[in-house]
């Protein structure tokens, strides 16, 4: 992959609530892994767990 295409990608961590459908996406932090429990759901206070970690383009294709 060229240098330019590397710069156009960012790694994100997707968190999901164990009970409701709440989902949040944030930048990846070292120490993240699937399905680590990380934080609580703002809706019902249930634990949030890491559902996915992937690289996505900084500018999404239309």
């Amino acid at each position: 992959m060229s240098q330019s295409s590397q710069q156009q990608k960012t790694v994100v961590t997707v968190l999901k609530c164990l009970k409701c459908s709440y989902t949040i996406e944030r930048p990846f932090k070292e120490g993240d892994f699937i399905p680590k429990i990380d934080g609580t759901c703002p809706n019902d206070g249930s634990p949030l767990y890491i559902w996915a970690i992937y690289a996505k383009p900084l500018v999404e294709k239309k």
Partner: protein
Amino acid sequence: MISMIDLLAFAQTSSQASSTYYYLIFLIAWIALTVIAFMPGFQQKMYILFVSRDIESGLAKLENLSKSAKNKTIELLKKSGAKNAEELADKFAEWFVIDPVNIEPTDIINRMKLLIRTSEDKIRQIIMLSLPNLDPVTRSKIEVSAEILNALNTIYKVVRHYLLLGKKLQSYYILLQLQSVVPILVKMAESYERAQDVFIKGIPVGDSLGPLVASRFLMNVNEKWNPSREMVAGEMEFEGRKLIVLKAEGPMATVGTPGEAVENVINKLEGKVSRIITVDAAAKLEGEQTGSIAEGVGVAMGDPGPEKIAIERVAAKYNIPIDAIIVKMSMEEAITEMPKEVYEASEKVVEMVKQIIRERTKPGDTVILVGVGNTCGVAQ
């Protein structure tokens, strides 16, 4: 015929004296160059010069990538508390495994397995000797770094060897072949160097697709066990079937020993298994889409031999059909951050696995699902 002196005299006296003078010099130089160009070996020497220049530019890139991988390994070792980080990095860079004898193929798999396991054990032993209290995740990161450093150092040294050999023997054909593969090797080396950063950070890679699919099933299983080295298994009920899911033990950066694990599980069940489903990442061909899914038959596994054959042998022994689901990606995507397309494909593969179980097995059957690949950043 006009003599040279007459010609020069004419040139000096004419109104175009200087231009004729330059014309003559050009003519002489042109004749001299033509004569030299047709001299035996001259053209070849020029070709060798140009080809060597091209290879040397690629070699410089390979040297930089190898040095960068070494510096990153040293940094990781120092961060983990190693006092002899440089010495360890040198040892990893020069590490080698001698291939088993293949002119007598009898029992080659067992010999290969022994050599691969001995090499893994030895690298681990070297690391643990310097860092006795190291956690498994950091240890796996150092092991992957050591493998990448070793690969980059080997590529650099082999290219340098053939460049020097070609120049020494003045062999245009050695250099020509080398020139044609160096761009591919540079691209491969750049991918390895980038992969080192990804593994050190613990980010799931494209090859983590298989373990990710397996982890979706294992998330709700409380009782898990280790069927073989660095492997984890869990049993669950799926629509009346007994589903046993296997994957490498995460979130360490390891592929585990899936062949041995499947063999042990099936032998323990005395062969009473209806189907084996294997899920893995696969190299795409140029023009194919990243994240495209294909289904087939056989063991989906990019293994040198021992693990894959273990599944084939146990399946053949008990006549168990093997299904394969692959998700396509480039070599670089397989060893660097998992692309979004591959993550999206993993969700579809989970549904495909469920569909295969529903369609090809009946309630009461036992099914084995193996998520093959490096489980970096994917626990269970």
